[in-house]
């Protein structure tokens, strides 16, 4: 009924989708799985009209269609239930449901609120939600909002004649088990009218609800399995798509870390609303991975160590000295470097060149009485360009024009050249291609050898297991389990998952 044929989508420096084929039958539920960066969200955006494919075609009932925006896709019956909820929280439920489609209730230029409330009730009934349509959205629970999202998309039933295709992006991530059951039963009930594409990290749920499962990796569909023959292990293997050999994560280069006094220690550190009573020590040469789901407090811990958030209780010490003042300036001065997840926004300054970016955190080292020593900056930059094999025509090239991997190298060079020996890496390989990832892994090993202590939030669990000496599993801001002794034995994926969810 709905089909994608050979869809390609290229972003500067990345092939996000290549030759993707996908078919959805009437009333079918298909699952879409893949690692972060495998191309799932790009594919979803192509389907609901937010992106236009560079080549390939989209067909509905054999007719080729082209959407230049999500609204046009909606007119063809394609709706999206967003993971990050798209409801506007200070509007009422019914205003949200009919946002952009209020015209049907307008009489003499004025909205007939009663009619809208009636219609909203009918929509809410579809998802078995008995709430007042004039309630302000912010007063609802997350699960209720998720159902309102679905109800909003289901208004397509009345507006569109043909079949519907509804995308569900991680709809269960904020739901409790019984809410997930409810959502699934609603989805199953709706199959007479709509087909669904279900995206989730929770493999059991994907298996439970989907008729067929599309497995994506590096922008391609690597396999399509039907539920009867699906097997979690096999799918996960395909998602990763390679024998996870020791070479990939440079495990043969991993050495024991120093047993001297720790570089950094946290004692019962809490930030209210983010994480509580987190304690650990970081030693020279150690790679310590914080593992958990989104919102488990991993990033917040990094940002607290870097002085961007202030602990509400507990003590943080750097080289045995308690930290009294929390600010990024103080952290940088104490030898802490931070490689943020949002590389293009927080990592590099686009519009500044390579050497300007490298010395940004250490202008004091390259200036006297505030006057810069530009030739010194350039010399350092050239040295690090050589050392890390950064692909750039010169140190004068705008950093915004480098590829992701090279940008990341510039960020790492910034901290390394400034002598930081505590590095906080937040998803350092996110969005990088395999070669660039391996470069980052090499650099991590090299830094460990040089006595740098690294706290890592990895892009995937395999990466965490491959790189770490120590793993701390977090859930809802609380450390659940610590894994040590990686040189002799590593935990499995399931050991970690078990404590994460």
């Amino acid at each position, binding site marked *: 009924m709905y089909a994608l044929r050979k869809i390609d989508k290229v972003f500067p420096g990345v092939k996000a989708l290549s030759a993707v084929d996908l078919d959805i039958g009437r009333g079918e539920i298909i699952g879409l799985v893949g690692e972060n960066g495998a191309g799932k969200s790009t594919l979803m955006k192509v389907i609901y009209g937010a992106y236009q494919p560079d080549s390939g075609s989209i067909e509905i009932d054999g007719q080729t269609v082209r959407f230049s925006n999500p609204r046009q896709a909606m007119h063809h019956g394609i709706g999206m239930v967003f993971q990050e909820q798209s409801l506007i929280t200070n509007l009422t439920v019914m205003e949200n449901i009919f946002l952009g489609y209020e015209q049907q209730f307008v009489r003499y230029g004025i909205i007939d609120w009663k009619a809208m409330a009636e219609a909203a009730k009918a929509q809410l009934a579809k998802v078995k939600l008995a709430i007042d349509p004039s309630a302000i959205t912010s007063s609802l629970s997350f699960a209720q909002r998720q159902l309102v999202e679905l109800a909003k998309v289901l208004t397509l039933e009345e507006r569109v004649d043909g079949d519907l295709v509804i995308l569900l992006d991680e709809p269960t991530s904020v739901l409790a088990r019984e809410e997930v059951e409810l959502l699934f039963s609603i989805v199953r009930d709706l199959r007479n009218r709509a087909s669904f594409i279900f995206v989730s990290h929770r493999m059991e749920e994907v298996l439970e609800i989907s008729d067929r499962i599309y497995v994506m990796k590096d922008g391609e569909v690597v396999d399509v399995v039907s539920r009867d023959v699906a097997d979690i292990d096999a799918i996960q293997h395909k998602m990763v798509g390679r024998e996870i050999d020791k070479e990939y994560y440079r495990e043969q280069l991993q050495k024991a870390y120093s047993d001297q006094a720790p570089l950094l220690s946290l004692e019962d550190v809490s930030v209210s609303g983010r994480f509580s009573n987190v304690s650990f020590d970081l030693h020279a040469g150690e790679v310590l991975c914080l593992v958990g789901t989104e919102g488990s407090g991993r990033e917040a811990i990094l940002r607290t160590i*870097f002085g*961007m958030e202030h602990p509400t209780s507990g003590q943080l010490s750097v080289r045995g000295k308690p930290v009294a003042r929390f*600010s*990024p*300036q103080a*952290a*940088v*001065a104490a030898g802490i470097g*931070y490689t*943020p997840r*949002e590389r293009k*926004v*927080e*990592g*590099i*300054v*686009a*519009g*500044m060149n390579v050497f*300007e970016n490298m*010395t*940004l*955190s250490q*202008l*004091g080292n*390259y*200036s006297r009485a*505030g*006057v*810069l020593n*530009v030739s010194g900056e350039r010399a350092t930059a050239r040295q690090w360009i050589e050392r890390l094999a950064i692909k750039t025509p010169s140190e004068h090239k705008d950093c915004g024009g480098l590829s992701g991997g090279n940008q990341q190298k510039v960020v790492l060079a*910034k901290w390394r050249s400034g002598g930081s020996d505590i590095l906080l890496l937040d998803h350092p390989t996110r969005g990088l291609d395999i070669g660039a990832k391996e470069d980052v892994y090499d650099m991590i090993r090299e830094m460990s050898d040089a006595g740098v202590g690294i706290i890592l939030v990895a892009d995937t669990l395999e990466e965490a297991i491959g790189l770490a000496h120590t793993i701390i599993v977090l859930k809802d801001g609380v450390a659940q389990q610590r894994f040590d002794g990686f040189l002799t034995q590593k935990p499995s994926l399931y050991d970690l998952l078990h404590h994460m969810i």
Partner: protein
Amino acid sequence: MSMERIKPHFPWITLIVLGTLVGIANPSFFNPAGLVSLTADVVPLFIMALGMTFAIYIGGIDLSVQQLANMVTVIATVYLAQFGIAVAVICIAAGFLIGAISGYATTRLYVPSFVSTLAMGFVALSVAKYLSGQRALYMDAELRNASFGWMFDNTAGVPHELIIAAVLLLLAWFLQTRTSFGRSLKAVGAGELAAVASGLNVNRIKILAFAISGGFAGIAGLIFSVKLSGGDANLANGFLLLAIVAVLVGGTPLTGGVGGVLNTAIGTLIVMVIRAAMVYLEVAATQQQMIFGIILIIAIGLTIDRTKLRIVK
């Protein structure tokens, strides 16, 4: 050659094209003595725009400069007798302080700079009105000449005003390109979040940028006051729009991070040429602001970096 490559060269191309057009229509425009005096006339505006460049370079704006200059004309006139040439220090310090307060409000209290500087501008205006008793004040000619007469002399045919402007431009250029402060300004303008994550004291840098803007407005007000030999709470009215136009047509966009003080020098000359053209075309003085208002919107439309702005309100 792509549009993006040409864009940085727009300002000086515009200047040359406009200058040539005006010169063809009115050959007396190229008369050197006339050009020098035209240029000397825009010196107070240029200095104000030079300061404003710092505020815009970090992605903010300073709407207080005109009122600061108004206030300083009054301060200079009132206190000249008492302090002599040292009144200059008071004038610059007053501008610097008010700019710093705007900067503090912007960074620490999260008041957007267009509001904080607008508000501080009214504070300055009020100070001017209070100090002047809402009257136009005049400097004692002898005192003025004794302290500041040198400003309007010539050396080898070059008016000292132009030398002052050149020295300040050099100073601002040095600050922008050769100091760690200037580098930090660029980082804040081009990527504030990355500047924060690099451990820069972004708040201090921003406060300083607004303070410098205020300080330059103080210098502009002082020169203007000495030039007209008096002070008045409305003396510098009409400067604000022109100063913003000078910065923006010079090629420093409202989104910050690119352009800089040399661009503002070119921008000010463009403003000068446009003014000369309007005089030649006999556009009434009352209509000039209308034209500059439209030029401002066009200049912003052409220069702004839309990728940095997701929502404009």
